[in-house]
């Protein structure tokens, strides 16, 4: 819709270079791993906030959306970009009215404190002892108030300087949150892993690695790692997990059903968590979860809040990509490669009914609760629709 030049006036030369560089990297597929993508996107968003010309929260939002759209054009299936941009938009819309309210009435001041506390609860506060129910109530009321306040004060002059620094510090806080997500999740490990359990995990996930290693500080257990065929990143996971308290066994993907008969718990990492509690995870995960369900093994999914994607997966393949076939059928056999379709999808969609618990920084949640959690994380539907091309 928008050409890159439309907003180029708003961007500094350095920022433009930064954006172009990031886009090139996305296009080349150089960025692997959800955390890397998330952090890079967040950093870029911070750069946009800090280094572009804007005079109002709405303008900034438009700028962010433009950049987000361009990123998505480069890598349309990367859910994390959507997550991060949505989150930053949310931060902006929370922070913008807050600075406006500072100079006006007492009610507004009260409202801002509430908003601030809600924002804190959203971003980092919830990881404490606060129960989900409390967090829910608090943020609901604060949201209503904040909405009232923000609509009434929308036309007020923004104190740009304060707003900018507030937004940037909020984004910084968010970046720290993403960086520490694994450690925060790992704090829950002992609640989920008991001694001498047999745990199955699938492919490479640093979140799961930390989760298991944290539990291994106190408990001794067995971990079965499936290798996750075309990438074989389970090998690295196995190597990383092998430690005095963890006995690691690597099995081929085909043996999952066979070995599942002895597995107590399946702990999975994921690429993204959808609004319905379903997962977009490495291919093969669906079968692992289905086998676990058949053997009544619990499926625990470890995912940081930054992996929560605010959309519903109606069409499973929309978020999937097919990888190069040579990992499955080496190009050496040219005649065969030419005659055969080789399918090697990157992700699997795991429906929410195969997931028992999703563990994030704040503890465990049911898949059915995820949509509500995401309402706290992201702004309302109006802002979520920015990534739909016709918008």
């Amino acid at each position: 819709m928008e050409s890159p030049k439309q907003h180029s006036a708003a961007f500094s030369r350095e920022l433009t270079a930064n954006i172009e560089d990031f886009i090139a990297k996305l296009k080349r597929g150089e960025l692997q791993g959800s955390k890397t993508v998330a952090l890079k996107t967040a950093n870029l968003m911070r750069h946009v906030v800090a280094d572009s010309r804007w005079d109002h929260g709405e303008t900034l939002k438009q700028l962010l959306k433009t950049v987000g759209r361009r990123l998505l054009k480069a890598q349309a299936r990367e859910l994390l970009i959507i997550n991060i941009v949505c989150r930053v938009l949310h931060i902006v819309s929370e922070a913008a009215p807050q600075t406006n309210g500072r100079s006006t009435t007492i009610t507004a001041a009260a409202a801002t404190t509430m908003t601030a506390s809600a924002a804190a609860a959203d971003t980092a506060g919830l990881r404490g002892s606060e129960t989900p129910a409390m967090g829910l109530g608090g943020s609901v009321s604060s949201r209503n108030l904040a909405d009232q306040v923000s609509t009434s004060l929308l036309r007020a002059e923004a104190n740009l300087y304060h707003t900018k620094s507030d937004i940037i510090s909020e984004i910084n806080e968010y970046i720290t949150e993403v960086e520490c997500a694994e450690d925060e999740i790992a704090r829950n490990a002992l609640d989920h892993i008991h001694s001498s359990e047999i745990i199955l995990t699938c492919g490479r996930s640093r979140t799961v690695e930390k989760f298991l290693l944290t539990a291994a500080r106190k408990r001794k257990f067995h971990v079965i790692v499936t290798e996750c065929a075309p990438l074989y990143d389970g090998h690295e996971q196995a190597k990383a997990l092998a430690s005095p308290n963890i006995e690691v066994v690597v099995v081929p993907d085909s043996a999952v059903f066979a070995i599942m008969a002895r597995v107590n718990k399946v702990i999975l990492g994921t690429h993204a968590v959808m609004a319905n509690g379903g997962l977009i995870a490495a291919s093969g995960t669906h079968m692992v979860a289905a086998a676990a369900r058949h053997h009544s093994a619990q499926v625990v999914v470890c995912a940081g809040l930054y992996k929560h994607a605010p959309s519903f997966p109606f069409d499973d393949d929309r978020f999937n990509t097919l990888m190069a076939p040579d990992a499955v059928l080496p190009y050496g056999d040219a005649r065969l490669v030419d005659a055969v379709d080789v399918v090697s999808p990157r992700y699997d969609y795991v429906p929410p009914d195969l997931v028992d618990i999703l563990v994030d920084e704040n503890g465990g949640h049911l898949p059915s609760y995820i949509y509500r959690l995401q309402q706290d994380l992201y702004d309302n539907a109006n802002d979520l629709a920015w990534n739909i091309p016709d918008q």
Partner: protein
Amino acid sequence: MSKQEDKDRKGKAPSPNELAMASQAAESTAASAAATAAKEKAKKEKEERRKQKELELKMKGIDISGKKPKEATTKAQRRALQEQQRADKGDKGNKDQHRDTASVASTAGGRDSRAETASQHAAASANPATAHKKNANVNMSNRAVLQDKRMHLYLHLDFPQHPPSSASALSLIPTLDAKNTDVAERGTGDSGALAAGIENAAHPPGPQVVVGMSREDYVAAETGEPATVTITDAAGGPFEAALRDAMPPFESGPGHRRIAKASGGMVGIEIHPQIKEVGLRMGAMDIVGSNARTESVLAAFVKVIDDYVSPRLAVVNRSLHQHISVQINFLVHQRPMCIGMGNAIRWLKHEIGLLPADIKDEEAKSTLISLIGDYVQERISAAGKLIAESGAQKIQDGDVVLTYGASSTVQRLLLTAHKMGRRFRVIVIDSRPQSEGLGLVRKLVKEGFSDLSNATDSASASSADDSHGAYGKGRGRSGMNGGVTYAPITALSFLMREASKVFLGAEAFLGNGAMLSRSGTAMVALAAHSHHIPVIVACETYKFSDRIQLDAVVSNELGVPDELIYKTGIPDAQPVGSQSDQTLSHMEYSAYARDRYSGRPRWNNLSFQSKDAANDSGSALAGGKGKGKGARASAAAAAASSDLTPEAKAAAALKANCPLSDWRTTSNLHLLNLMQDVTPPEFVTVIITEVGMIPTTSIPVVLREYKNQI
């Protein structure tokens, strides 16, 4: 030729080489050496004469077991070993004993001490038990032992007879040499090079590597018992125990492969060469699949029975039964039998038992051979054909058939349907490490499954060139009318939505209706079940078993763990050495079940060998074919100089690309390569058999019917 050489040997005085060999033998049988030394010469001659006779007989196709003399020497050897160990306990006991032996027979004693000073390594190969006490470098001696085994394998392949014990084996050497030169002359090279390599090896007097280690270890390798070679040093890498450790929670259960023990009596009975070939090829996964295995084993048994000569005064059915049991034992050592094969063999034994006691040899043979022919025809070939024909009816135009791995029955079924003119698409799901599905895909492509040019609604032109050009458009080219799709098992849930029918093959059906098959089948069946797609299994009734198994962990077959190290599609993450080196003819595998299934480094794990080649000058073992000699000779130089051999480079690349390549030395890291899967009966919609399409609940009924027939 061998005769001539023997004469030469007799003619001249014992060469230094021979002396050293003799000394080696003496070393291994330290205490008894003195006693046997005097007899040795006479015995040697006797053995040689026997050898000649045997060779002559062998040419006529008759084997003689050298059971008696062997057993005697084993006992002597064992006694000697015990004595030596006892002697080793006391510090000076050892020396005293040597002095004793020296005083009794000075020649033997002299040789003994000379051998000790000559080479520790040779001692290691001569007597592993003592070697490990003496030799700090466990790895080294271990490799020597492995090398020994390699030699044994050659013996094993070349002669239908087992290698004789240490003393008598001396007489075998000329024959062996003759054999090797023979091979070299014929130009096949490899085994000749190997023999040459061993002669030039760092182990001083080469061929008695064979002599030294021989029987105990060999028998142990055959029976799967931990032999005197058991190495307890953990630093050398996890060994036998690694297998157990691989599955700590299930010590008593899964995959803990129980290799049937051979009774002491059977050791001397010779294994028929045909059985050896089939067994080794099965062990090397050259013959895979229930039908192929059963057919080839039965074909081998036809030969065995044909060549069988019952001993005098023996009742045919009894002695043949015993003879066959020995052959089967060998087969089981190579790879556990699949259920179909077990059933066939049980049937064969039953038929042998039914032979009347006074039946003549020839008559019994012809009866059995024709019976076996009927069995193969009726239960396997014709059954497969029937299944293919009736199963093909289930495929309609526009179907998307999903299958897993490569079942011969399913392949036949698909080809039949294709020949009937049905237009359907095939999705082949495959998994590591066997990647059998690739073979099926090749076959299907060859048969024109991917050729869409004559498909009714295909847009592409009819000429082959155009249809060829239409390929390469990615996913769209497999339409409802045909095409072959190939995907790893991780893509299962992605592709299952497209399938309309799932066809699977089975290794066996168990009494409770569960399907025993290649690991991964259960996942496919589960996915189909959850997508409400019918699962149709093609299975001959001879694979039905009344055994009951609830899950795949209670009993399973373990594949070679090292297969999991490598990654498909990454050139640097492949086994070191080209693919062609991975064949039986190049001896790139271990014929010993114990080596294949234990944590012990295998010979064909070339990464180990080439890695060690840099550190270990003495016993570097080059990977590639025909390189044995050169690599060994230059091993010391390679160790000294820093320039890496191609093997070492490849090994380094392998290590960088495969994090698991050093799993043996990483504590708490294990690889588990399960081969079988038990699919719960509720996942199977229908079984197509030669007796009709039946549900899983009918398996006991079919079994009962067949039992009543018998």
